[in-house]
């Protein structure tokens, strides 16, 4: 589904990603961990198509297409979803209004008919319940004045509505209380199926108790320095990232 090959990315004069290699197949869940500033969000943004990053080497293919030349909306239409580490507040833009426009833009791009207001609202309410998002938040401006946890739930809610093929969740677990964490995990698990894949960026192995990943990768200084299974997260939790550096040195 996603093949990242030797990806080098620069912002201004600063090279942030230094040769990422990562293959994600349909049905898999990959966790990406790594110290602050190692490039996890940068990788997520590049995959979703944010401007301002210069790809200096390497490639990323998604469903056989060159992902990096597509506009953000085209990627979304093809099923890519980014759950933001810091969801932006958008005053004056109603959550439901926006999401209806988003889902219909995607449906139209994929040759489907638009959802009418009634069907959309039914579906949105159902999904809001599923992810434990207070219905009153649906009628508010996107993320405006939402608590940190509410913003993260709103990301998961949008994911649940849009049903992406490839969900990239950038620290969606940060700032969530334990109940919310479980709900988010349920939201992600509900999406798991043989046709979809998930990339989870997280600092806490706790999330991985609820969403059991197929692979765990450690990103450091813009490179994946270690990959393993579920147990790698536990080792990291115990020993910290310095262990990796020492391991690399010896």
């Amino acid at each position: 589904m996603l093949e990242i090959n030797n990806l080098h990315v620069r912002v201004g004069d600063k090279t942030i990603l230094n040769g990422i290699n990562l293959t994600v197949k349909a049905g898999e869940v990959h966790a990406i961990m790594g110290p602050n500033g190692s490039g996890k969000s940068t990788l997520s943004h590049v995959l979703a198509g944010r401007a301002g990053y210069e790809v200096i080497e390497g490639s990323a293919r998604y469903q056989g297409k060159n992902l990096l030349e597509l506009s953000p909306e085209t990627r979304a239409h093809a099923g890519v979803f980014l759950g933001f580490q810091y969801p932006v507040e958008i005053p004056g833009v109603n959550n439901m209004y926006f999401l209806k426009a988003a889902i219909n833009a995607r449906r139209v791009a994929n040759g489907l008919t638009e959802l009418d207001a009634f069907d959309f609202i039914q579906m949105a309410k159902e999904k809001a319940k599923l992810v434990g998002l207070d219905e009153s938040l649906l009628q508010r401006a996107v993320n405006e004045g939402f608590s940190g946890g509410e913003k993260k739930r709103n990301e998961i809610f949008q994911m649940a509505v849009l049903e992406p093929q490839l969900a990239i969740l950038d620290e969606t677990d940060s700032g969530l209380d334990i109940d919310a964490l479980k709900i988010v995990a349920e939201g992600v698990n509900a999406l798991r199926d043989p046709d979809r894949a998930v990339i989870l960026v997280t600092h806490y192995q706790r999330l991985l108790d609820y969403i059991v990943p197929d692979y765990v990768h450690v990103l450091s200084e813009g490179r994946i320095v270690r990959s393993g299974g579920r147990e790698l997260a536990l080792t990291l939790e115990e020993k910290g990232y310095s262990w990796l550096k020492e391991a690399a040195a010896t």
Partner: protein
Amino acid sequence: MNAAADMVARYCAELASIAPTLPAAEVPWIQQTRSKARDDFARLGFPTRLQEAWHYTNVGTLQRRFFSLASTDISIDPKAIEPFLYTDLDCHQLVFVNSIYAPALSTIGTLPSGVTLENLATTLAQTPQQLEPFFHSREQPADHAFNALNTALLHDGTYLHLAPNTQLDKPLHLLFLSVGKAEEHCAQPRNLIQLGTGSQAVVLESYHSLDDAACFTNACSQVILEAEATLHHYKLQEENQLSYHIASLQVQQAQRSHFESHLLSLGATLARHELSVDLNGEGAHCSLNGLYLGGGRQHVDCHTEVRHMQAGADSRQIYKGILDGRARGVFNGQVYVHPQAQKSNAEQSNHNLLLSNDAEADTKPELEIYADDVRCSHGATVGQLDDDMLFYLRSRGLPEDAARGLLTLGFARDLLERMPLKPVAEQLEKKLIEILSQSHGLKSLI
């Protein structure tokens, strides 16, 4: 004589020749008011950019051509005005064509007792003495050329009077239509509104073109609010892109009166909206809201002037501009606090969104505060759409143009939400969406 002076002379000559035919021409004080105003206009001429109040706005192209003041007699198919009416809003409706009252298009209906509502020509002809409260400063030399020009003609418009403790049962919609096909015309409506103690009314002014000819509207509205009276005023300006719209709205407020205004400026090549509010009584309150859009080469200028003359009055101003193409928006907000106006509360903000690199916004707050125990704040911004917001929306699948449109609408949203009349807010929102769709492809999604 230079060209500008020639043009002023031409207007004055036409005014002089029309004068004897105007309503109440035989009433001495009215005749004097008009002729003094004509002299004032002759002396003042059109404003130039050397005048502080006109620093950002050049009326050069307006004064190079002549717009006839003579009254026109044009009959309009009632169907033609339908697009300009507010659906779902039951109103008293006065329609004016080139500022002349069109009874066939108007519906005043039955009025509650204590309410006088008629077109101004009727008042001038029948009970001109009622209008004196609006003209008592007629001894002083005028310093406002466009107001002088309007007063020099003083022919038609609206007269609304509410006796104390009266409520106007329905909103009053004043619809001003410009027609310029036969001859380029200057419409000069005058609207005089007086609400007695404790009275309440809602008034909507809207300005539209019926054809694509250039017109010049020089509108002047005056409002007198007695103690504890409340007026909500809405104004929609949507004349065609060749037209000129110059308007002033002057409000006098007695103690504990409330005035709320909502402006939406969309049309005209040059639009100037002046709003001056004198808070003459303790505890008076005004809330001034404005949204102005410009595209192409439009120029839109909002001038506010709030004077706190007595203690404990409140003023709030929120103006926002959305400027695209090579448009230019101006906001000049003056706040004056008299030495005895302690415990005044004055807030002002102006935010501008530039949608293109060639659009321009000028914002100039002017605060003159002579009392020490006051709370005054002002803030002004000029910015573009936020890249992070755009990316967020696009990452969910919104095409770029729709995302821009949605964010632009979001920028304007709070001004729509502030309007207490929901049918008006909804209709104006539709209008905004329509305009934004032309450049931003919003419509397909909403």
